């Protein structure tokens, strides 16, 4: 992954000298800067109106009581204090963290392994890749619905297979406080094509000479993986880790159709509670405070990941 670092300075093109300019015309440099801001215009405008302003507003709303009908009323840190004392808030936090802590590493490992298998030059690989990417194309709502049904304790496929193969009576997956989280993780692992594609693209960018050199030095497959593949992929691993983590902390759609947070809040994800507070009870101030807590958590975790990444991420070309 490229970084934002300075780029090689562009040499002044020959047209600089060729082009004749009027006395009061803006210099080429100014003209280029003006065009930069013209081309960036749509993003800049959308960013100011739909991101920056709402960000500031939601930060402020976090210190108010607000129901979208009466004007907001300043309450200081009360929302944060309320959340601090709210057992459901902590439960939703724990549910989300347990899910993220298990799901993200497992997904990362499986995606990488899969990408390496899908990178083999075997006839029919194009079709196999499409099959593997299929779950990622299906809308999350559809995936959620399919899994509700597969996990059905009475006529679902999972308990049928458990019964048929292992001879055991399967649990009431989505109806059981103990099994709902494993079920949610399993269903999440079904649709991980996007991470696989990014790994696959990166694998294809690794030069074959590196493997040949490693092999001439007597490195076996495992050592080639550890000393060539992992270092060369490490920027992409970091990217997939961060994007996976940020996504997992915001899980919403699939859970909304699968469990609505139940049973007894056992799958009450952070954003589900936030959504209920905002648009179920119209506690918009409280929900804003919740959103900012999540934002701070994400920033903190991203910061830690980036900070420690210097030790294991290798940028070729010494960026």
């Amino acid at each position, binding site marked *: *992954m*490229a970084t*934002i670092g300075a*780029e090689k300075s*562009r040499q002044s*093109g020959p*047209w600089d000298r060729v082009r004749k300019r009027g006395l009061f015309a803006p210099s080429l440099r100014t003209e*280029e*800067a003006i065009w*930069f*801001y013209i*081309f*960036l215009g749509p*993003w800049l405008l*959308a960013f100011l109106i*739909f991101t920056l302003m*709402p960000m500031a*507003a*939601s930060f402020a709303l976090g210190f108010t009581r607000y129901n*979208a009908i009466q004007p907001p009323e300043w309450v200081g840190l009360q929302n944060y204090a309320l959340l601090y004392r709210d057992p459901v808030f902590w439960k939703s936090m724990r549910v989300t963290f347990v899910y993220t802590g298990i799901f993200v590493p497992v997904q990362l490992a499986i995606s990488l392994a899969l990408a*390496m*298998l*899908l990178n*083999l030059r*075997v006839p029919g690989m194009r079709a196999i*890749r*499409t099959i593997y990417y299929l*779950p990622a*194309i*299906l*809308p*999350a*709502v*559809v995936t959620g*619905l*399919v899994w*509700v*049904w597969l996990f059905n304790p*009475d006529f679902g496929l999972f308990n049928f297979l458990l*019964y*048929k193969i292992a001879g055991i009576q399967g649990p009431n997956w989505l109806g059981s406080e103990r099994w709902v989280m494993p079920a949610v993780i399993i269903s999440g692992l*079904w649709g991980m094509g996007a991470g696989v*594609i*990014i790994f696959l*693209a990166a694998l294809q*960018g690794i030069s074959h000479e590196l493997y040949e050199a490693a*092999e001439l030095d007597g490195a076996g*497959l495992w050592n080639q993986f550890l000393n060539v593949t992992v270092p060369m992929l490490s920027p*992409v691993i970091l990217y997939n880790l961060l994007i996976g983590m*940020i996504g997992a902390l915001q899980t*919403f*759609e699939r859970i909304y*159709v699968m469990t609505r947070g139940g049973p007894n809040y056992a799958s009450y994800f952070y*954003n589900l509670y936030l*959504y209920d507070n*905002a648009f179920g009870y119209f506690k*918009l101030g409280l929900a*804003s405070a919740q959103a900012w807590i*999540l*934002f701070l958590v994400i920033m903190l975790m991203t910061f830690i990941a980036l900070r420690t990444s210097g030790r294991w991420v290798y940028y070729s070309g010494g960026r």
Partner: protein
Amino acid sequence: MTTTTMGIRLGRRRRDQLRKVLGFLLLIPGILWVLMPTAWMFSAAFSSLAQVLRFPPELWPDPWVWTNFYEGFTYLPFGRYFVNSLQISVIRVIGQVIAASMAGYAFARLRAPGRNLLFAVVLSTMMLPYTVIMIPQFVLFKELGWINTYKPLTIPFFGGGAFFIFLFRQFFRTIPEDIFEAARLDGSTYFGIYWRILMPLSLPILATSAILIFQNSWQDLIGPLIYLNSNDLYTIPLGLATFRSSFGSSPWNLIMAVSIGAAIPPVLLFFFGQRYLLSGIVVMEK
């Protein structure tokens, strides 16, 4: 070539083959794992409800029920929802692709004070949870009278989005400088370079972004959930989410029939665009 390297070459070929066979065998359980729910979807879409609810389950529909699709798509006006979803997604793809390619060009090729800082801002918006801006956006759109229209689901995206701006920027940076210089010598404007030179060269990136944006938009649930109240404006995901609760017991055969219908546009798009998708994402590493 010396005999030792010959030996390594030969051994290597055999090991390569072994690796391929092993890898292929490892892929098979995964294929089954991925296809199992899909097969189940298809089976249910053609089965009677009684068969779907039977235990032990039977994969092969008996009898084949073809009316599930008709019934599913008429119980709630899913045909309508389908058109709605399509309309929103197409508008969003066009707006977002244009904005992202423009911003990508600016960051890749035009120098201006503040560029690096702004690019850092673009990338850091990837960290921002939607929920942080969700509530003030809702208040803003309520004031503007945008509730129950498609504007909140399309216009905020006309900024391009961090990921896609990044994708375009990375791609434009791989295009040789000479092309730009030659174009400038011929008297091309910056806009001319963007429109007549860069756009035709960016087909893989345009296709990649269009596919991914379409997928994002097509499956969005939270946006329609917040902003759409009247039934005839509903999108497919919103319709499916309400479908389940509007029946006493879940009519799984109808739900699966509609789900298959809902999956057709993104699957078709992926099928026809997949050769661009991989090459499009490769530039990210550059």
